[in-house]
């Protein structure tokens, strides 16, 4: 097994990231996903292993540590699962010479065509072929040495995907937004921002941004959108319902997309989605694939919402109130699948009901619990 002293540097990198996650020094799903990936790359490049099981165990241990540090940043676990999935794929390619076929861009139409979900049976364990030798007693490092370059490539793929996620999500933006539409959005989401700006290249439309109290991310969003030349209105949260009748489409960002097709999204999303349902306005969610989370009913709905401090709502200096009022300030809303019409990801467009399939494709079943 890997010797302890050699691992102290990577150990420290893992711990440092765990601390940062705990202390909320890294927030946001993409930032955490990127950091996780960088740490995983370091771990894989430094660690020593002589067969696949050891490698998987190492990565899982690191993943578990990071997920425990901050169970509410789901993209950490997702990234680890994704890396594990890619590693297995590369391993099978190297050992069998044939890659498990990846379906590539997955879309609603293909889903209908494909019909039955593809069974993802674990390939039978075959003895290593070619140059790849596991558990070589003479040279225990040979497995790692020959596999590492491919692994690095696999991680680079994931990294590239993360880096291009905004562009890939928004490449079809013009197909979703039509001219003279009125779009409603809320909060500050980079994905939604890119999506709207990309659509504005070809379409001329109007965006209404809710202020999104208490974080007021909507104000920043409105600023960037209007700077990009989109006609933008910043509206108070309270006018949401009144405006909804005029809105053609609600576009939301997500914090995590759950396996049942629901999602965690910034506070206010549930309200917007419910109002939209009342007016039969379509609700579209833009999110990168790394937000797909193979979990649902995490803890229970209440605890998973991640509560912030009350100071955004009630000033600490209001001494007489602080003692008598309990302020509940959740970061996220849980939006049920029936309120969402479509997810637009960098891997195609999906209805909430097919998210489970997407998750099955993206991750290996055995990694659902790290």
């Amino acid at each position, binding site marked *: 097994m890997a010797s302890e002293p050699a691992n*102290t540097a990577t150990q420290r990198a893992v711990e440092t990231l765990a601390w940062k996650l705990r202390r909320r020094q890294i927030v946001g799903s993409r930032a955490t996903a990127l950091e996780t990936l960088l740490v995983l790359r370091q771990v894989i490049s430094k660690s020593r292993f002589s067969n696949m099981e050891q490698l998987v165990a190492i990565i899982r241990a690191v993943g578990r540590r990071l997920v425990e540090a901050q169970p509410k940043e789901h993209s950490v676990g997702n990234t680890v699962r994704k890396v594990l999935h890619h590693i297995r794929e590369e391993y099978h390619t190297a050992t069998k010479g044939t890659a498990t076929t990846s379906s590539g861009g997955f879309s609603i139409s293909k889903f209908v065509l494909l019909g039955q979900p593809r069974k993802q049976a674990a390939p039978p364990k075959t003895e290593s072929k070619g140059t790849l030798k596991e558990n070589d007693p003479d040279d225990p490092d040979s497995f790692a040495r020959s596999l590492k370059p491919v692994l690095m490539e696999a991680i680079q793929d994931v990294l590239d995907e993360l880096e291009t996620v905004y562009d890939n999500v928004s490449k079809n933006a013009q197909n979703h937004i039509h001219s003279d539409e009125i779009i409603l959005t809320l909060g500050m989401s980079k994905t939604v921002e890119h999506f709207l700006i990309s659509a504005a290249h070809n379409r001329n439309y109007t965006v209404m941004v809710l202020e999104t109290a208490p974080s007021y991310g909507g104000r920043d969003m409105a600023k960037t959108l209007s700077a990009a030349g989109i006609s933008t209105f910043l509206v108070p949260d309270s006018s949401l319902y009144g405006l909804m009748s005029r809105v053609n489409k609600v576009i939301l960002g997500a914090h995590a997309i759950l396996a049942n097709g629901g999602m965690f999204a910034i506070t206010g999303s549930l309200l917007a989605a419910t109002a939209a349902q009342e007016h039969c306005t379509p609700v579209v969610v833009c999110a990168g694939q790394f937000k797909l989370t193979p979990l649902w009913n995490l803890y229970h709905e209440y605890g998973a919402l991640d509560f912030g401090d009350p100071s955004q709502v009630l000033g600490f200096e209001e001494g007489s109130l602080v003692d008598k009022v309990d*302020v509940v300030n959740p970061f996220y809303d849980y939006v049920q699948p029936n309120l969402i019409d479509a997810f637009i990801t960098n891997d195609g467009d999906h209805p909430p009901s097919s998210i489970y399939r997407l998750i099955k494709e993206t991750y290996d079943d055995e990694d659902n619990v790290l």
Partner: protein
Amino acid sequence: MAPKVASGKEKLIDEDDEVLQAVILADSFDKLFRPLTTRTPRCLLPVCNAPLLDWTFESLALAGVQEIFVICRSHAEKVKQAISESKWSRPGSGIKIVPIMTAKETFSAGDAMRDVYTRGLVTSDFVLVMGDLVSNIRIDEVVRVHKERRKTNKDAIMTMVVKESGAAHRTRPQGDSSVFVLDAETSECLHYEPVSAYPRTAMTRIPREVLESHPEIEIRNDLIDCSIDVCSVEVPSLFQDNFDYEDIRRDFLHGVLTSDLLMKNIYCYVAKDGYAARVKDTKSYESVSKDILSRWTFPLVPDDNHPGGHVYQHSRAPAKSGNNTLIGASTKIHENAQVTGSVIGRNCVIGAGSIIDGSYIFDGTVIGPQCVVKRSIIGAGVTIKEKTRVEKGCLVGDGVVVGPLAVLDSFERLSKRRNAPGEDEEEDDDDDDEEGDDDEEDDDDEEDDDDDEEDDEEEDDDEEEEEDSEIEEIEANQDKTSSILGKDSNAIVWPRGPSEDDGDGDGEDLAAYKNQRARRLGDEGSDLGVSDEGSDSSDAESDDESSDDDSGNDFYMSGDTGTSPLATPTLIPSGQMQEKEFRIEVAQSLERAFAEGHSVDNAAVELKTLRMASNVPLSRVREAVVAAIVEAVKIVDGAAAQRKEISRVVGRWGELINKIGGVDAVETVSALQMHCASSDRFPLFGQILAELYQTDIVEEDDIRAWYKTPAAKGVGLAAGPTAENVKRCWAVGGKMIEQFDEQESESEDESE
């Protein structure tokens, strides 16, 4: 040594690469938590199920501190052990924590700072906090502001972090708040005065100089003093130079602000965002716990980044327990038990039908069925047997057994009887239990009881001996308590009332005790049913208090009243002592000057030095100088000869009055009046005043201003010969003013 010096020089070039250091004073230097702290240091008491010190570490880690020195005194071994066993010692924590054990002779924060200096611990600007801090303030931001300021002003030696709170706030302790006078623009701290709850501080006095040099000031009584100080390296050395500094606020801050020689500035950082508070007393223990549970300390909250490393789940209140309740792992709560607004440790058992309200129960405590516990702190491993009532404000020490059917009155304090005959067996049982608990726990913040016993016996340390003797004394005084505490109890009841509360043992005890009451858990003052005469500290009064403080009419009084404007009520006896000595010294020094014919300037320098040495306010010096000059006037027969004598003395030395460091003629006149009234030179008052007027030491306006002050009329003086004389002096002044008026009208007439 050499590289260190070099790095010190490089500091100017790349300041950002410096390691941010912090010094934690992990000793409280008081006994407000006893008997909970007889076996465990305060900084290891659990707050929301994690040791207080871990909250402090986490607060500092959040701010990017990389190196922490923990100065510990009482139970230093335990603190050291706790640190070495904590997650902070594991690789990857990114923080280096060095426990420093100071000598047992360290009795105050000042001593600890001197220790920091002698050990040479800090190499650059550092953060000084107490070992009972819970905060999520971005201290690194404060450090940045501090360093920025240092670039332009080398004399800005310290930045204190204060947090705004409202007029009445649970986290701003009633008995321990303070008045800050800040420059509105730069938030430089200009004056500081502590506010005590008993006797209630009703007014504050602001030195005249403050108003002179700053056009706009803020007088604030709504600030929580977080005791987070960003200090420059000079700070420990200032403590070293002034060996009598004890408290960082009362002595050091006050000393620096009032000193004419140091010319150092101290600034405040009024934190807008974030939370910071200290667990200074049982009352703030409660309020900080509540603040943590209502997530003011986010991200330092139990379900997110719990410093003890436990995992908690945030949930909407289940049927059994109310909101804002924290329940530790492996704790069993039986049917029909109600738990509201409380913190319960790990491995506890709450019996069926018990009611726990607003209480803090440490690990491994068993509460039997049908018990009632209200607003109390129950230590670790306590057994409360069935149908026991614990009224509010009780402190129950570790390992106590109470009940069954016991009733603890409000504010009762219990601790375990040591080595009592017949109790040994039971004690052993307790120990076994505790050990079992520790095995299950993932971090051993709680100490085993048997360790404690050994420590107590092995360590030859004065404090523990002192404590032991105290406990023995208390044990000796136990009579028929067992009837109250239930037949199975192993507890001793700590005496109430002022006598044992703090070890000073003199007349201030009652005041100190009442002051402490204001800081006690659950002591509201408003609930007159249980509290006795010490209930002055009600919330309603605090409002008046703040308005008093803010009203402007206190200022002018600093000029004409005889009491020291700066001494705190509790310090008066020592202050008087100092003043007496000072008066004698001044008299002697001036006598020498008069006799040997020194120049006025030399005498003034000598007076200044004396003033610095004994740290007295300017008005005292003025009084002493005026007194000395009056006494220097010989009484001679004959009005003309007398006048000549007066003009000789005043002409030669009168100038000195205005050279002692500030001109305040009104004060001079009232000093003259006060001195003459109580001296045999009373008849000379008018003549001396006239002479002072002639030599331009006092102006006509000053005499008029003095004449109008209430003190000049003898208001507030006890009836007696002195008061009589004061009134007569005032009458003399009145005549003089009449003369002025006549002269004026004459001159007016002439001009017309």
